Every structure is written in structure tokens, then in C-alpha cells.
């Protein structure tokens, strides 16, 4: 696959190894047995690169989650592994230390490992609680974590909510830091492209950090002097494309229709694992693979089982990105192959040498069989969901909205869904989708829906609705907003002209081949996500151009060339948010020049990094992987996807929902 060689350009394995090494080193520095207290959200992330058994080898006795004050004092050494950016978590750590210290009879040794860095605020809070001197404080500079060979994630759980709802720019800063690290390793990104206001902020921050890096590098005594010579443009990376999530809400609100996407929609995928009822898996045997860092103390109820979803699985990499419609045939094919293999072994007259080679293959064969069983049961469960009446109706509304047909039935269906007490987030997703695609819902209709929602689901959702409005997901349509107003001008586009963009970037494909995809739109069975189209506007210019305005018969297909956003400036101007296009040059023009001479004209930097600020969905990843395969075939370029975290409409909307009800 294309992505495999992309992995070579940006070596994701290195990142995993380094994170593991760093963590184990920190654990080792505390002598003897220790209890590890870990932030729940971080546990899964850590589990991506360290097994629990490894932690035990490094002296970890018990694992606790940082909550409910459940830390016990069975070991003298207590290590906290917590994200230091959130004041609330820091506070909890401080309280825990105080609690253990006051309740336990032994003199404990505390160590705190802040991820990814020690913050001033954490110092302040620990000091206020009088425990700053108590704990040995270190930091684990864990930034990007690879979720796949071509997918890097910061695994910031709240990044979507932070950016959209709370307007807290912490994820932007974290992203900038992580991208700086990549730049230090691979050289300056020669060009930074992006769309969206936050993308602009990130690009600005990257440039600021670059100029500050000079000073930082030289004033850090531990730094070897070579790194202080300023960054020179990368020879590996061609450009960085930043997609601000706020530019493209509809894509996350639409239901993902790839296999992994639907797994996410139905069960929720976190840190490359999905947790399902064991009844779903039926008799499928537990894979004897890694036991991830599951705390022993938390009662993971016997009925839940974790299924790892990564490239170690035999089958999953092949089917993860396929449209769900084609999963049946795919699984079928594998089953047949396995069956014919099985028949081979029953053939008793085999020569001994054949038998030997077969026996050697046996373990992988068994693994494959186990994996097949698991995925068949998962697919079955998903089918139950996709066959349901609600799913059909939701999808109908969704697709109507995405096509842009102003169906009058849309509202009726939504009303019916509310009346039938369907899950709140399903309803909200549809309303948000409509709001996003038409720049708000008419005031009167919106009020009507709001009223229905609070009556059906409870008055606490006044807050949910306020949250959605604040995040810009569900807003009243205002006549003076955005493109309708000629005075607001093009500089600060605050709303997207979806009709123009739909045509300009060809966001809907009528005839989509789900089993033999020919366009990224297969991931949503017709809808081509705007985010991915934007990437195509940079990397697959002529393809997109021909799609938008098909050449008349006889005329040669358009071969649009150029770099950056060229050729699509008009469409971009109709999308809300700033457009970013920055060229980064090295300090030393001679060095860059010399390099380009040495390199010759043929072999340029060939990897593009696509960064999703605010999260990316599995379906988009699938679409990008499909696209990556195409461009690799055509021009040998590669694509690496990076993000602040995985997101889906479900998680995005759920984060805004008020969970409490009246009466305690």
C-alpha cells in the first residue's frame, strides 16, 4: 500500500519507540516497586505503546485511575502520570498526594510525571496545596502518538470541545509544539497551507516558534550546538496542509460509512481499541495478543471486551477503510480462502515437506481465523444498526442535506425522531448538519425544535443547546451573517457559501462505486468530504479540476499545475475562515541552494503532512488513504495524516450535551 512507504518518510515507529523508552526510563528512575496513578484518558494512549506486563517488569505493582481518591498506600513509591495542561487534573493530583500523606502511616515517595510538559500552573497549584516539595517532578514529552503507520495523533481528548466550545487555544499550542518537533527532525516544512482561522493561528504560531527556536536552542545549555544553526527546509516533507475543523463541521456530523467509521459510530473507537459486549463476539476466542495497560483494579465488567484495532491484526488493515456495503463480500472472500486452506490440511497424502511449511504457517493462519470471527460478529452487529428504521431515516435526511436539496420532509422526519424519543445525539446531529450546511436554521423553526427537544429530553438541555450555539454548530440564521451581506467583504469570511462550494469542489458524486472506489466520496457513499477535497485542491489539482468541469469530449483533460492553492482561490474565498499560504525559507539561502543543487531537479521532497486541527474522523482518514494511494501511483508522493485527536459526530455532539438531570 501507498501508506507503507509514506511511513518511511516520517518514521512513526521511531516516535513509538522514543515514547516507550522515555516512559520506562522515568519509571526506572524510581527505585523499587511502585504504584502508578494514571489519568484515565492517558491510560489508553499509554497502552498504545507499552503493555501492562512491561510496566510490571519496571516495578509497577498496581495501576490506578486518577479519580475518586482511590489511591491506596500499599507501596512506598507512588507515581502520578497525568496531563499537566488541565488545572483540574493538577488539582486532583495535589489533593491525592495530600490525602495519601495524611492517611498513610508510611513515609511515601511521590513522583509526578507531567505529560507532555511541566507547566507553570501545575507548579502554582502544587505549591498552593503545599505539596510541591513533596514530589519528584519530571515530564514525559509525549506528543504525537502513531495510531497507524501514516496516522499521528496527539490524542487530546477534548481538543474538539476546547477549540469550538470553549475557544481555548491550548490544542493549537500543543499542535504547534508537536509540529515544531517534526520540523526539528525533518527540517522546515517548505510550505504551510491551511484553511480556517485556527489554522491561521497555528501557522502564525509555527513561524513565531521558529524565530524563538534560535534563541531557545542557544540558551539551553543541554543543547548540542549543532541544532542551534537554524532550521533548513526539509528534503523529505513537501508541505504541511492544515485543515481547521471549524471549516468543515458537516463532515464530522455526517455518518461515517466505512467499516472502521461505523465501528466508531456504533461502539466508539478509542486508542485503537473498541470495547464491545462479549455477547456480541459470541464464541470468538480472545486473541492472545497484548494485554494493554488495563488497570487491574478497575472492574472492567466481565461482559465488556476490548478488541484491538491496529495493523497487528491479520484482517483489519485490509477492511478498515472499505465502505461497509462491501464488507460482506470481503469477509466472505477471506472465509473461503481460509476454508480452502483448511481443506488442504485434510489432504493426508501430502509429502512431509509440504506439511512442514504448512505447520509453520499454522499460527498466522489461526490468528487470521480468530480475526475473521471477530470481524464477522462485529459486522453483524453493525448490520443490525444499519438495517434499523432510524438509521435509514437519518441517512436519508443526511444525504438530502448534503446533496443540497431543500427537502421539506427533512424537518418532518426530525420531528418524528424527537417524538419517538430517538437518541438525543442523533437528532442533534441532524439539526447541526442542517444548520452548518445552510448557515443556520430559520429563527422560528429553530425555536420550534429547541422547544421540542427540551420537552422531550429535559430542560437541562437548554445548556446543551446553548453549548451547540456557542460552538457554532446549531445557530439561528441571521440575515446579516456571512456571504449574504455584501458589506462584510471577503477578508473575514464568516460563513461558507455551501452551494458554491458544493459545485466548486464537487462535494457530491451521484454514482459512487462502493466496492471499487473511484473517488474519495465512497467513504460517505456519495458525499465527498470538504476537508479531503481541500487537500485534493493542493495535491490532486487536475483530477479535481476535471471533476468539477469535465472536459468536453475530444478536448484534452485539464492539466492544472502549480503549487499551493492555485486554481482554487475562488472557491476557497467562499469558505469561511482565513486562507493560509506561507513559504518557509532557511536562514541560510546558500545552504538551501546547495541542497537543491545536490538533490538535482528530479527528486524533490515528496511527503505531505495533512494536519487536522480539532480532530479527524476515521472516514476522512480512509478517504485520505485512498487519495494517498492515487497520488502515489501517479507521482510517487506520499501522505501522512496528523491530528489533535480522533473525532466523530457522536463524540463531538456528546461533548456538548449536559449529562445531569434535575433532582440529583
Amino acid at each position: 500500500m501507498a501508506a507503507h512507504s509514506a511511513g518511511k518518510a516520517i518514521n512513526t515507529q521511531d516516535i513509538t519507540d522514543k515514547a516507550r523508552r522515555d516512559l520506562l526510563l522515568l519509571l526506572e528512575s524510581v527505585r523499587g516497586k511502585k504504584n502508578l496513578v494514571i489519568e484515565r484518558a492517558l491510560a489508553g494512549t499509554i497502552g498504545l505503546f507499552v503493555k501492562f506486563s512491561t510496566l510490571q517488569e519496571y516495578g509497577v505493582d498496581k495501576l490506578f485511575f486518577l479519580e475518586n481518591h482511590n489511591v491506596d498506600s500499599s507501596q512506598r513509591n507512588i507515581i502520578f502520570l497525568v496531563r499537566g495542561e488541565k488545572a483540574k487534573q493538577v488539582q486532583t493530583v495535589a489533593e491525592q498526594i495530600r490525602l495519601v500523606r495524611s492517611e498513610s502511616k508510611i513515609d511515601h515517595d511521590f513522583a509526578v510525571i507531567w505529560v507532555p510538559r511541566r507547566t507553570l500552573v501545575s507548579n502554582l497549584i502544587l505549591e498552593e496545596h503545599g505539596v510541591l516539595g513533596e514530589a519528584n517532578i519530571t515530564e514525559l514529552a509525549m506528543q504525537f502518538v502513531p495510531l497507524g503507520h501514516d496516522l499521528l495523533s496527539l490524542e487530546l481528548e477534548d481538543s474538539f470541545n476546547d477549540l469550538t466550545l470553549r475557544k481555548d487555544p491550548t490544542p493549537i499550542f500543543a499542535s504547534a509544539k508537536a509540529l515544531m518537533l517534526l520540523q526539528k527532525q525533518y527540517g522546515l516544512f517548505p510550505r504551510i497551507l491551511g484553511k480556517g482561522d485556527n489554522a491561521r493561528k497555528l501557522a502564525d504560531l509555527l513561524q513565531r516558534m521558529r524565530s524563538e527556536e534560535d534563541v531557545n536552542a542557544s540558551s539551553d545549555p543541554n543543547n548540542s550546538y549543532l541544532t542551534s544553526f537554524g532550521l533548513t527546509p526539509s528534503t523529505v516533507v513537501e508541505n504541511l496542509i492544515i485543515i481547521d475543523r471549524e471549516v468543515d463541521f458537516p463532515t464530522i456530523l455526517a455518518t461515517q460509512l466505512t467499516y472502521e467509521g461505523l465501528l466508531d459510530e456504533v461502539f466508539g473507537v478509542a486508542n485503537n481499541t473498541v470495547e464491545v459486549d462479549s455477547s456480541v463476539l459470541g464464541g470468538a476466542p480472545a486473541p492472545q495478543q497484548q494485554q494493554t495497560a488495563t488497570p487491574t483494579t478497575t472492574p472492567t465488567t466481565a461482559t465488556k471486551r476490548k478488541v484491538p484495532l491496529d495493523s497487528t491484526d491479520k484482517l483489519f488493515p485490509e477492511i478498515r477503510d472499505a465502505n461497509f456495503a462491501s464488507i460482506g463480500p470481503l469477509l466472505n472472500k477471506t472465509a473461503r480462502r481460509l476454508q480452502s486452506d483448511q481443506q488442504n490440511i485434510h489432504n493426508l497424502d501430502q509429502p512431509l515437506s509440504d506439511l512442514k511449511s504448512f505447520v509453520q504457517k499454522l499460527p498466522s493462519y489461526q490468528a487470521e481465523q480468530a480475526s475473521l470471527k471477530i470481524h464477522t460478529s462485529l459486522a453483524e452487529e453493525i448490520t443490525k444498526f444499519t438495517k434499523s428504521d432510524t438509521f435509514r431515516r437519518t441517512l436519508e435526511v443526511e444525504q438530502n442535506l448534503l446533496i443540497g436539496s431543500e427537502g421539506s420532509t427533512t424537518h418532518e422526519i426530525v420531528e418524528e425522531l424527537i417524538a419517538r424519543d430517538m437518541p438525543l445525539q442523533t437528532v442533534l446531529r441532524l439539526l447541526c448538519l442542517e444548520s452548518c450546511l445552510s448557515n443556520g436554521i430559520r429563527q422560528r423553526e429553530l425555536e420550534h425544535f429547541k422547544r421540542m427537544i427540551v420537552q422531550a429530553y429535559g430542560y437541562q438541555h437548554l445548556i446543551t443547546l446553548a453549548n451547540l450555539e456557542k460552538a457554532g454548530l446549531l445557530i439561528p440564521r441571521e440575515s446579516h451573517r456571512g456571504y449574504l451581506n455584501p458589506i462584510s467583504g471577503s477578508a473575514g469570511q464568516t460563513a461558507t457559501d455551501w452551494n458554491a462550494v458544493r459545485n466548486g469542489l464537487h462535494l457530491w458524486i451521484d454514482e459512487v462505486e462502493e466496492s471499487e472506489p473511484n473517488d474519495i466520496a465512497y467513504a460517505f457513499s456519495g458525499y465527498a468530504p470538504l476537508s479531503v477535497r481541500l487537500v485534493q485542491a493542493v495535491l490532486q489539482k487536475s483530477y479535481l479540476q476535471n471533476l468539477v468541469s469535465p472536459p468536453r469530449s475530444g478536448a484534452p483533460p485539464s492539466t492544472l499545475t502549480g503549487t499551493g492553492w492555485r486554481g482554487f482561490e475562488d472557491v476557497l474565498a467562499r469558505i469561511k475562515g482565513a486562507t493560509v499560504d506561507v513559504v518557509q525559507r532557511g536562514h541560510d539561502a546558500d545552504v538551501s541552494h546547495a541542497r537543491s543543487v545536490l538533490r538535482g531537479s528530479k527528486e524533490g521532497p515528496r511527503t505531505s503532512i495533512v494536519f487536522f486541527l480539532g480532530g479527524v474522523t476515521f472516514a476522512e482518514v480512509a478517504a485520505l488513504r485512498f487519495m494517498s494511494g492515487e497520488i502515489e501511483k501517479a507521482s510517487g508522493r506520499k501522505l501522512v495524516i496528523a491530528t489533535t485527536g480522533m473525532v466523530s459526530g457522536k463524540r463531538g455532539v456528546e461533548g456538548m450535551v449536559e449529562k445531569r438531570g434535575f433532582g440529583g
Partner: protein
Amino acid sequence: MSKPRADWEQVGDRFYRKTQLYTSVFDPDLELENHVVTGAPYSGAVAVYRDESKIFSHRGAQTTKPTIDIYSCAGKLIRQIAWDRGTIKAVGWSEDERLLVVTDDGNVRSYADLQGEFTPFSLGQGAEERGVQACKFWSTGFAALLGDNSIVAVTRYDEPRPQLLASAPHGEIVAWSVLPPEYTSSRSVEVLLAIDKTVYVVDASECEDRGLEAGPFRHIGISPNGKFIALYTDDSKVWVISSDFQARLSEYDSKVKTPPKDLQWCGNNAVVLAWEDELHLIGPNGAASKSYYDSFMHLLPDIDGIRVLTNDVCEFLQKVPDPTEEVFRLGSTSPSSVLLDALDHLERKSPKADDNIQLIRTSLDEAVDTCVRAAGQEYSIHWQKQLLKAASFGKSVLDLYNSDDFVDMTEALRVLNAVRFYEVGIPVSYEQYIRLTPERLVQRLVNRHEYLLALKVSEYLNLPVDRIYVHWAGQKVRSTSTNEDGICDEIVRKLNGKRGISFEEVARAAYDEGRRDLAIELLEHEPRAGKQVPLLLSVGEETIALDKAIESGDTDLVFYVLLTLKKKIPLSNFFRTINSRSVATAIVESSAIDQDQELLKDLYYQDDRRGDGSNLLVTEALSASDLGPATDKLKMAAKLLRDSKEYATQVTALEEAQKLLRFQEAFEKDLNDRFIGLSVNQTMSKLIDKGHMKRAAKVQTEFKVNDKVYWWTKLRALVRKRDLRELEEMSKIRKSPIGWEPFYNEILGAGKTELAALFIPKCTTLTMAERIEMWMKCGKVAKAGEEALKAKDRGALEDLRKQASGNAMLDIDRMISQLQKGR
């Protein structure tokens, strides 16, 4: 020129040499025997202070004030630190030339960079109570022995955290030493204690008796690489054992009655014993040599040798390095030696030069390498030159030779010779230079205010020079008292255009000097916004600090400034400050949601953000466990919005919420069931479920629930309840706001086909085909047939016939024929 062998001495089968580094080091009046002398690693500075335990002659007033004097190895006074506090128990150095002074009550002062300013820290309460007895230092930390034999270790100085090690047995500690963490298998510091006849090893978690029986040991010395331990027994013997106590390597009998004053390692293969003026050098296998000094001497051990310091001389005692031995050993026939000889002939224009070369032709490259390396080990510039010339000569004969090492060595030697000059006084050996790294050597020069030399060295070695400028500027700020603008101008002029200059540090120096305005002025030039923040906070320019923090994009910094700001200024000013800065407001809001709702309320009030304020009250209502306060909060939330028109619907909703709670309360009382916490629809559903239709209807009218919603709710509730009678009743109603299809679907879903079928005829909006399917689902083929008959659809009837059986088939047949007849 003296022979390089002149100061060699053979000990066993090895050679050791004593290089005289500097003469007339100290003032002859300085009574070294009454002073404690410690030297920083890598030939660093030397700290001298008076040993309080010794008697000394009174010499007038000036000596009554104790001081710690820091000298260079050449005896140049670098700094004098007046001591005003407590009894000094130990003075030591870290590898970055940080001076540490420990007093008997466990207070430590850490003087970085040879400056007079210090940062204090304490060894904890235990040390205060029991008193510090002695300390042992290693490159990055130290261990302190307390009065009751407990040991406290500090492993880093940037953030010292005294750690109590496992407790040691009681008894007099005759001698002790530390094994630095980098050499132990546990990666934690280990302390060796000689108590009674044995040695205990103490680390963070346990104390282990090594079971030796030949004690008491007067001295314990650990080799620089941590592999060997030298022990001095009571019967005047020196034992060398491996540091894991497994192997005994050599033994030496000094035959001296009094135990030596000091025992130190000289590199990793010799041990030095020192009495007042007598020195024994013990090589491997117990071979030894003795030497005598004119006056009292001190030993300053280093990684590759030992410096011997007396009043008038500073010497470096080391094993003759291998390349040097190879070149210079008497009668050596090694290629390198022959090459050096060839150079001699060449200089005398003797043809034998070529003979020599031919002789070693096959190993010439090796000879060149050795000469280059030997040059590095020479202190005499003459011999350095000779060796390099020899190497160069040999190189010229070779066709192919990589000259990188040669070039590097010439560069290194230039630097070494420059810093060894007596006025600089850093007699660093080549080995030490490599270990120290050029960067840190430059730092040491800067610490000694040798800015010009530091600059020249940095430029020569292509090192960054910004640190030097910054340090210079800091010093300038401290030492110049002319007007502020002048200094600032001068500094900026000099530092401008240099890459990577941190003005923040210079500004901090100015601030520490109490020159606030200068600090602010200098800070303006700092390129990193984030770095300006802490100092701006300390000079009291909070709002500028806030702006800079926002500029840096680092939310942690912004939050930090905000927290500081909040404590410092009145709340109203605080709000006004953040009001105009959206990022700041966002951060305050997002943190306050979890922590400080009152603050948030004030903020919303101040900014007149009623919607948010009201929502906040709603969240409070949600967290209230009792109905009373919850209703009150809702009331307040509604009141907040009542005045403004745009929130009219919100107000209605809030009032409804209160009303619902009232209703539910009443229901709970009347019906003795849980209602609170349910939504309007759920309440209706539950009421229907329990058969309270009237009440449900009342809720509908009271809350103006949409008819459709009400019907759906009712339908679902009845189906769930399996209330077939009521459903049948409903089928008699003429019109349904949601149509009849849902009835059919829901009831069918519940498996009641008979009842479901009742609704099919009512679904008049559907097509015939759909209705046929509905009938079929209920198993009523005949009815389906009638449907087709009505529509006169023969095709449909024939399809049905295929699916039908028994009576139904007959019926269908009948219909088909009827249809044919009718035609």
C-alpha cells in the same frame, strides 16, 4: 628543552608523570595546613576556607571575618565570598563549577557560575536536628552524613530534593564514601560506610553489610569510573577491591604508623596516600613510589589524575598516557618513536630521516596517529609542536590519510594552551577537555569574565557566542552605574544583529540589581514573548505580561499570568483587563467552570452576558439535590433574562421547567412514584403507562405539547404496556395527527398482528403495493388480495398467488377470475 621523560617515574611496570603546572601559587603566608581546599572537577576553580577545627595564630582584625576564597589553579583569586552564617561543615563542587556550602544545621548554599549570589536550600528537618557531620560530593550531587548515622542525598541542584537513604547501623563511622548513581546497578546513589570491622552499603531502600573483617578501615576511596574501591586498613595496608566487593585486586603495605591524611585515586589505576608532606603513589599490583614535598600539600582528584597543591606549586600527577609512553619511552622502537626521530634527522638535514621512514613504512599511518594523540597529552608547547611536525612529516609521505584528527588536535591544542596560560589558570588535560566539552569550557571562561578569550575560542571552534554576550551584558548591568539609557544603548548596540541573544536574561540581571526601568527597557528587545512574562510579572507590569503571554500562544503562560493577576488586583479591574482579550476570557471561563463558579458568575454579570449567566444558574439548579433550591435557581435564571426581549423563549422554557418540577412533585405525592428528573414527554409516557390518562392529557395542554408528539408518546406507551384495548379504541378515532402507519408499525413490532391489521385500512395515503405488503406482514393474504382486486392489479394478484397456500390460494384464484370476469 627538557626531555619529556624528565618527570617520569616508574611504578611497577607503569610510568607516572608529575607535570608542574604553575609555580608560586599561593601567598606563602597562607597556612594551607589550616585550610580546607577543594577543587572543581576538570581542573576547575579551587575553594579555600579556614578549617575551624585547627588552631591558628591570630593575625589582627581582618582574619576574624571568615571567607571562602575561590582561586584558579594558578592561584589567582577569582572571588571572595564572605561567610556570615553558621559553621561550615563541607564545601564541594559540581561538575558545572557550582560551589556548594553545607553548614552543620543542614543549610546548603549553592553558588552557580563562580558568582557571589547563591540559592539556598535545606536538607530537611532531620539534618537540622541531628546536625551534619560531613558531606561527600560527586559530579551532580552530594550525600550528607548526619549525627545519627543517617544519610541524606541530593541528586540534582536545579531542583534539590533531599532524600533520606535507608538507615545505617549505629556505631562510629570511621570512613565513608559515595558511589555516584551513574555507576551503580540500581541507578541510585550508594554510600559506603566503614563501621567497626566491616563496610556497609546503603542505598535508598536498604542497608547491606558487606561482611568484611579486616577493618576498621581508615579511608575508603572510590575510583573515578566507579569500578574499584581502595580501603586503608588499621594495620597500614591499602587494599584495592572491585566495587561489587567480589574481587580483591591488590594490596600494599605503607609501613607508616600514622594513618594518612588523605587517600585518593589517581585516575583509575593508582591510589595516592598523602601525609603532611609525604606522598605514596601505589600502582597496580602493590608497586609504589614515594615522594616528598617542601610544605603541606592538598590532593585535588580529577577523572584522569590528581592535582597536588602546595603553597608554591601546582602539579598534575597522572599515569603517562599510552601514546606518550609509546613515543617517548626510553629505548622505544615503536613506529611513532621512530617517526619522531626521523623528524629530528630531517631538521638536521640528515638523510637518515628517509631511512627511518622506510623502516616504518608499513605502519606509518599508525605512527602518525600516535604522534597526533601524544601531542594532545603534552603540556610543553615545544613537544606539542615537535609531535605535530613529526605527524605532519609522516602524513606527507602517505598517499592517503584522513587529516581530520590532526586538524582537530591542532585546534584543541590552541584552545588548551590558551586556557592553561597562568592568568587564566585552567590547566585542563586533553582527556578532561573532551569530557568537559568545548561549550562548557567556554562557559567556565565566561564565569571567570574572560569574555574576549571566550569569544575568540567560540569563534575559532564555531560555537555559538550568544551566551557570552548575554553574560557580558549581565555583568555590564551589574557593574556599571552610569545612566540607564546609556547602558541600554551600549548593550543593544553590541548585541544587535547577533543571533539567539536572550535579552530576558540581561533584563533579569538588571532587575536583580534593582534597576527596574532598565530591566523593562531591555526586555523590549527580547524576541521570545513567553520569556518576557515572568520578569514583567515581577516588575509589576501585569497587563503587558498578559499581552505578551497571549502573543506567545502558550496557554499555560496566559493562565499563569491570569492567576497571578487575579490575586493582585481587585476583581473588577481583573475583569476589565480580560474583557478586551478574548483568549484570556476563554481561559478564565474554561478553568472556572470546574473550579470557581462564583468567579464566572461575577464575570458574566460584569460583562452583561445574561444568557451565559442564566445557564450557569441552570447548571447550579442541576447540581442541587433538593427541589427547593433547584427551583430557586431556575427562578433566578429566568429573572436574569426577563428584561431582555431576545431571551423570551428561553424564559418560557425556564418557567416551564419550574412548572414541570411542580407538577412532578404533585404527581409523586399523589401517585407515590418517581417523576422528578423526567422530561415532559417522559412524564406523559409514564403517566399513560400507569394508566393516568387524564393527568397525561393535562400535561399535554399545560405544556402545549405538540399533538404529534403526544400521539407518538401515547402510542409508544400503550404498546409498551400492551394495552390492546385502549389501542383498539384509538383505531376508532377518525383522524390521527401522525397518520396510522406508525400505529401499524409499532403494534406489528410488538407482535400483535391482528391488532396491527386493524390500522391498515386507515392508511389511506399509502399506495396499494405498500398496503398489500402490510397485509402480508400480518399474514392476511386474502385481505391483500382484496386490496389488489380493488386496484384491479392482476400482476399483484398473481404475485400473491405464488406466496399463498391453502384457503388463501383459493381466495386469490377466485379474485383473479373475478378480475378476468369483470373485464
